[in-house]
């Protein structure tokens, strides 16, 4: 079958590209769910996080988000992507002490999350805040301009508190894409990230890429199988996010010492 062969060729090509860009396997995603280079390229560096990691003190990463960050579908927070990211990061930076705090609440709006910055987030003294958002707004059809203003205000607040951040957009699913209009909210988040020089983890695009290339088919009728699929998905996202952060840190190091090799 040409289609099967083509898909096979694409997998090989993707793996080839992943290898090409992975210096000594440092960033190599476990082949199960590779992330193409275009999702990492051109993202701004994580300067403060790089410094904190090198500094030796405890580095707190706070995560805000919705149900998919809580990890409900997989069965619990220890299988959620922040927990998975945490263990991968611990392996990547063995000399640093990282602590990931998952503050996600299912069905929380961007506005409700932003209101928690001063109350729940800043007391933790985080070096990095990962903000997963946009889902509730797309589901409810919140005014895109209002969403943009809310997130911009949140970015400003984090900026004032001198906390570094990463934005993360929505999940992709074949079932809902024709029902829920994600487009305008995805564009708004991309523009926000771009205009504020904030790294954007494009989960929607990455998950779409996985679905497109048959790395991860999340459809199943059995409840237990679905739970396992969710756990696998969150593991993949956790890995990808850990790579994303590692890349941001590496880029910051490269920028601070222009003479040295990356």
């Amino acid at each position: 079958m040409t289609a099967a062969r083509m898909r096979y060729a694409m997998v090989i090509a993707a793996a080839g590209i992943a290898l090409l860009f992975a210096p000594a396997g440092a960033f190599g995603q476990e082949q199960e769910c590779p992330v193409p280079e275009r999702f990492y390229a051109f993202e701004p560096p994580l300067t403060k996080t790089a410094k904190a990691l090198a500094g030796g003190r405890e580095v707190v990463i706070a995560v805000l988000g919705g149900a998919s960050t809580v990890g409900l579908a997989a069965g619990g927070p220890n299988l959620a992507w922040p927990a998975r990211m945490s263990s991968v990061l611990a392996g990547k930076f063995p000399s640093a002490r990282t602590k990931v705090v998952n503050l996600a609440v299912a069905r929380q709006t961007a506005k409700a999350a932003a209101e928690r910055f001063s109350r729940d987030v800043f007391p933790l003294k985080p070096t990095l805040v990962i903000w997963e958002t946009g889902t509730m707004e797309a589901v409810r059809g919140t005014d895109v301009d209002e969403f943009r203003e809310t997130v911009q205000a949140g970015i400003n607040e984090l900026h004032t508190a001198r906390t570094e951040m990463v934005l993360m957009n929505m999940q992709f699913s074949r079932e809902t894409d024709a029902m829920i209009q994600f487009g305008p909210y995805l564009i708004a988040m991309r523009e926000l990230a771009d205009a504020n020089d904030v790294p954007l983890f494009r989960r929607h695009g990455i998950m779409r890429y996985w679905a497109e290339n048959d790395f991860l088919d999340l459809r199943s009728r059995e409840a237990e199988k679905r739970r396992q699929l969710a756990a696998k998905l969150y593991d993949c996202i956790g890995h990808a996010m850990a790579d994303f952060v590692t890349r941001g840190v590496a880029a910051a190091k490269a920028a601070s010492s222009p003479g040295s090799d990356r």
Partner: protein
Amino acid sequence: MSIASSPSAMERDLRIDFFRGLALFCIFIDHLPNNFVAEFTLQSVMFSDAAEVFILISGLTAGLVYGLAMERQGFVIAGVRVYHRVWQLYVAHVFLFMMFIAMVAYTAGALNNSLYAEEFGAANFLDEPGVAVAKALTLQFQPAFMHILPLYIVLLAVLPFVMAGFRSWPRVILFVSFVLWLAVQLDKRIALSVYPGPDGVWPFNPFAWQALFFLGVWLGWRGTAGQVSWLGRRWLFCLALGLSLAGLMIRLNWTLHDFYDPIPVLVSGKLLWMFLSKTDLGLLRFANVLAVALIVARLIHPQARFLVSRVARPFVICGRNSLHIFCLGILLSVLGHLVLNEFFGGIPMQFAVSAAGVAIMISVAALMEWFAAAQGTSRGSALGAPTAGRGVRG
């Protein structure tokens, strides 16, 4: 607009049909998910997109047709004709909603049995079908892609009164319309809420978009009859040209930056966001569509040779049957969603789905034209907003 010199305003203005057809194609293409082809529609060369073009042209057409009807047949007959049209649009809206419900019912099982159930569950309207259906009938429930018709319906519903106002105090009406638009820009709370709340609003705020529509109505009614002299002023043309060029440069720069990040952004979007609201028809969107319309009206003759050529024909016939082709485009974009998300296939597939959709739209329009001709009347094509020529005959 500045077609006072044309032999008679009664002749069909092909520009209206052509650009409405273009807008219909763009609306369809822009609605496909993650579509590469959408980088080449109207929105990549101006701040406005096909929605503004569609509403402005709808206003112009309504002004042409019902303005004439009001002068010849009186307020009551013209009013009844408007409400007949409103009824057609409403039926179309309900029809589209029916299709949407069918799709939701079909996919709901899959959604509830997915790991997204918790996150996207709030989008499952079948939880309370009674409320959802009733709210759709009152235009308060506007599922994905079903936003323009409700706007068009409410605008047409108040049209007879606005036109009666135009007849007596045109300046006052235009001023009030503009002030209402301005008020929305200053206070976002001037909006209509939608189901399922609590914080949803009409994706096209009627209090803002009315300004574009009614300006179109007035220009369609008075401007075409050569009664708006300042439309022909040279400084206005230069202003429009400058604005359009600025819009083109900035928007194109953003598109290129999206393609390849290292291409620097000339004007940061952050500075312009407040003027680019689609919901509230931000200043730049409003101004850009007017500027481009003025340039088009000045440079292209209503019966320009290009507009009767074979190349323009697909656009013209789709624009002429706009309501049907619009609804068809919405259905096709939903189907296109399903196809693209099931089979993916990258850019070639996106091109294929876009091209297939446009081809179906053209075929159906051609069929309608043929049927109308076969019936020996112009009734068939009157399904779009009636046009000037027909308005006179009818």
